[in-house]
């Protein structure tokens, strides 16, 4: 941060200055994670760029471009587009509900002809934006606990219910957790949080028993007792744990992970890529990558905290919360601490939509940093 460069009026709007204000350390951390992902994808396809590694890198390159472009977008534009993006996402979710392509047993995709769109991914950004915008106009007192909190609850509930109905339990949990995180960050009374936590804990068993689909229930029951049927539904968890455990301290060596190379590991290129990493690079490799994630989260939260606008703070922190949740849920799943839900390890796993979502989100984070001195004055306490 060069203080002298931004003293003159209008200086901050110059593109070159904006680019200089992008947090390049943050960018480097993200690049390291994505490169590790590419290296693992290269390994599991038998030391070949095809079919995943090359695509992963190309996509990441494109996403970096998008992120840089979004970083230069004025945070006030983000602010104005918050509700439209949310509304667009909601409409797409409803569209999927009506005409959605049934793939993998869940209506998650909307085929637009040129690209198969996953509206739930758009919603992850849209929800954060909408909540940040709403809280931007809300007093600290009201954010603590008031009738106006009905609005964020509805904002969270609508997409969550639609996504859960698809059914995509992983994304639904992610949406609720992200929304909840933003509410807490905005100042929701910790007493209310505690009360909610107790209520949710009490509601989980009946929810699991009566609301979930059979396969979802089985995943949870399997998680609780994976050894009950090691070749059936407990297979994923068990094989993943074998991959992790057999990696040991330093791993089996690059390209030598038998669990992943011989296909014992399920979804080795997407949800279980971390297990591949663990098998080939061991405890040391895993901790290194986890530290990269910790660094990314720390930097993003710092960016959030230096923003002058409440929208910027909550938006950047909300995106970071989503990212952190991805890491936690995927990590816990791969290590046999959580049921198998379709949540990838962001930037490490192969998969375009999630990478795009995360990078768009970090585009907002970078934009918040670039425009940290911008004040947003309009929209105070209103919905529109």
């Amino acid at each position, binding site marked *: 941060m060069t203080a002298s460069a931004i003293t003159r009026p209008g200086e901050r709007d110059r593109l070159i200055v904006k680019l200089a204000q992008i947090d390049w350390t943050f960018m480097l951390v993200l690049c390291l994670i994505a490169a590790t992902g590419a290296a693992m994808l290269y390994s599991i396809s038998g030391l070949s760029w095809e079919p995943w590694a090359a695509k992963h890198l190309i996509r990441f390159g494109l996403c970096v471009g998008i992120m840089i472009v979004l970083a230069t977008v004025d945070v006030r534009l983000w602010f104005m587009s918050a509700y439209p993006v949310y509304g667009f996402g909601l409409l797409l979710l409803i569209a999927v509900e009506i005409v959605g392509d049934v793939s993998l047993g869940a209506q998650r995709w909307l085929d637009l002809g040129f690209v198969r769109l996953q509206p739930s991914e758009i919603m992850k950004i849209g929800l954060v934006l909408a909540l940040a915008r709403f809280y931007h106009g809300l007093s600290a007192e009201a954010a603590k606990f008031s009738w106006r909190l009905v609005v964020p609850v509805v904002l969270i509930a609508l997409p969550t219910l639609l996504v859960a109905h698809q059914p995509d339990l992983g994304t639904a949990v992610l949406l609720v957790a992200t929304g909840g995180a933003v509410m*807490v960050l905005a100042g929701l009374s910790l007493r209310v949080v505690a009360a909610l936590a107790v209520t949710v804990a009490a509601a989980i068993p009946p929810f699991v028993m009566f609301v979930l689909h059979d396969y979802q229930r089985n995943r949870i029951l399997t998680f609780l007792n994976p050894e009950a049927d090691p070749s059936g539904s407990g297979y994923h968890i068990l094989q993943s744990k074998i991959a992790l*455990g057999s990696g040991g301290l330093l791993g089996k060596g690059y390209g030598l992970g038998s*669990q992943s190379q011989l*296909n014992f590991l399920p979804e080795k290129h997407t949800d279980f890529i971390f297990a591949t990493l663990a098998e080939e690079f061991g405890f040391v490799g*895993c901790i290194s990558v986890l530290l990269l994630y910790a660094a990314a989260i720390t930097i993003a939260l710092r960016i959030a905290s230096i923003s002058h606008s*409440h929208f910027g703070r909550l938006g950047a922190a909300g995106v*970071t919360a989503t990212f952190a949740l991805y890491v936690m849920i995927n990590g816990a799943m791969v290590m046999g*601490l959580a049921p198998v839900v379709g949540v990838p390890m962001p930037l490490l796993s192969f998969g375009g939509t999630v990478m795009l979502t995360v990078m768009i989100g970090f585009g907002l984070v970078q934009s918040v940093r670039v425009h940290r001195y911008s004040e947003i004055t309009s929209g105070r306490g209103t919905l529109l």
Partner: protein
Amino acid sequence: MSEPSIFFSEVNERQGVFNRRAFLMGGLAGGGILALGGRLAQLQVLEFDRYRLMSTENQFNFRLIPPPRGRILDRFGVELASNRPNFRVLLVRDEINDIDATLDALSQLIPITSERRRQLLREISRSPKLVPVAVAEDLTWEEFSRVNVRTPELPGVTADMGEARVYPHGGAFAHVVGYVAKVSDRDVAAAGLNPDPLLHHPGFRIGKQGVEKALDTVLRGKSGAVKTEVDALGREVRKDPEGDINPVAGKTVVLSLDADVQSRALEVLGEDSGACVVMDVQSGDLICMASAPSFDANQFVRGLTSAEYRALSEYERRPLLDKALSGTYPPGSTFKPMTALAALDSGMVNPNETVVCSGQMWFGNRFFHCWKRGGHGAQNMHEAIKNSCDIYFYQTALKIGPDRIARVAEAFGLGQTFDIGISGQKPGLVPSTAWKRKQYHQPWYPGESLSFGIGQGALSANALQLAVMTARLANGHKALNPRLIKSIGGVETPSGAAAADLPFKPEHMELVRSGMAAVANDTTGTAYRASQLGLGPVLMAGKTGTAQVRVISRAERASGVRSNDSLPWHLRDHALFVAFAPYDAPRYALSIIVQHGGGGAAVAAPKAREIMRVVLLKDAAIRARIESPLPMPEAPVSTTGEVEGEAPPPPSETILPAAAPAVTGGPTQ
């Protein structure tokens, strides 16, 4: 805001809350990552050994290679049991997603009937997921290669070339050699806590009877394994020849049997039910041990249908029973040499002393009959054996008492089992006063001695025992033991000739043997016509026996005893014959029992002659003796209806106390 503040605007308060909460969130995220790191440390550092083992188990697969089962040969090296290639298709449940689709695809390539399919599905659901199940066996080469080409598209299906047991002689050795069949749950249970993994191999068959069962572990060998690196679908990725374990073939077992003799015996017995045992008089080797009717052992290898099994098990003549070992019958007149020897040994009977036979004798309060209605007149011992005179032996038995006879019978092998390496022998029974006391808490009644003296009453023996009895008598010195298993894996088993001496005077035994020679070679002997071998100077000696299984009532005896042909099969007499040859220098002893066959001379003796001819002709030394072998004369046809050796009625009518008949009526098999 309850109190107004100059320094903290509302905006600043929101920022303060946010920063605290963001710090909290950062802490939570840090804690979460720390927890993940802890879990990683647990899995990767603390539990590393356990997961490394599981990973290796995943990665490498030891595929079991069943060893070739040891062959079973006869004394000349003829294969009695061997192996043939068996093309089959196996299926592993664990590697198949859709069983029905896989079976559909397979039925395009090989015939699978809907019944077989149902049976298969049942089998698949019953067996553990990782254990292969045989879909089809004994495929032709075309069918096999058709499946083999398609296996890459059919995960979990393998075309496999194994070996199957084959019995080239079909039924001839079904009882002695036995057979192998699919492993049953009981076999697995019997294998104990740590069963040989072979038991679960779909191609593996376990010995179920005879030598196959008794020497199963010897014949089985040791299984080998191929170490391969496999992927999650069980497909071989790489072989690891250094990790291979070669299978060890089962040992070859050589039996003392002669395939030609055994086959001839089965042929001669034909549809009759019975058994024939031939034994080497010098070594104790069993040359033949046949039981008829027999069954095709090969059927058991592939598995019988329930209808086939029912047909075998319900047939009146009991093909599944090994009659040579487990069929015990009253020996009838074939036992008379024992009574004679006991009399000589007792010193109480002079062999030249005569007994007058009038066809019947009064004892107790009833008549005992001789088989010959008019009687034989004055008989000395030699004549009594030759003519099989019942009255002579009634008198003799009465004079010397049962215990002397029992002692001789036991010395000659009756009432006991022999260690011939296979199970299933029934010891039969040699009665004595001690036995009677022990079994019935009653004294021996003299009337029982009469039946005992002519080989009836409670006395029973199997064909093996009668062969041993004859062989010991023919040998004249040694209490020979029978030997069935000649060698295992090239190691000779102890000969049956290494036995104790018989505690009887040679001249006494010679006297009995000459009586038996007369039976076969004196023109008036009971089996003269049926005993002519037609082998020049090589002659046979023998003793006929006809064991009665029913009570002949007084009324029937008065009106004429019914002939066997007019009776239902199960009431007819047992026909027996024991023989040894050559008479002047005994080499082979034989016993034959034809269950419900009729008269010993008419039915059993001609069969014995046929079998003995083959035995003798296969012996080079004996062939040399027969300077010019004559063509086999037609077997003389019995013209008279008279039946030799007919037993008196079992003493059930009047003489014996009520308790005894249950046993003395024993002839009813």
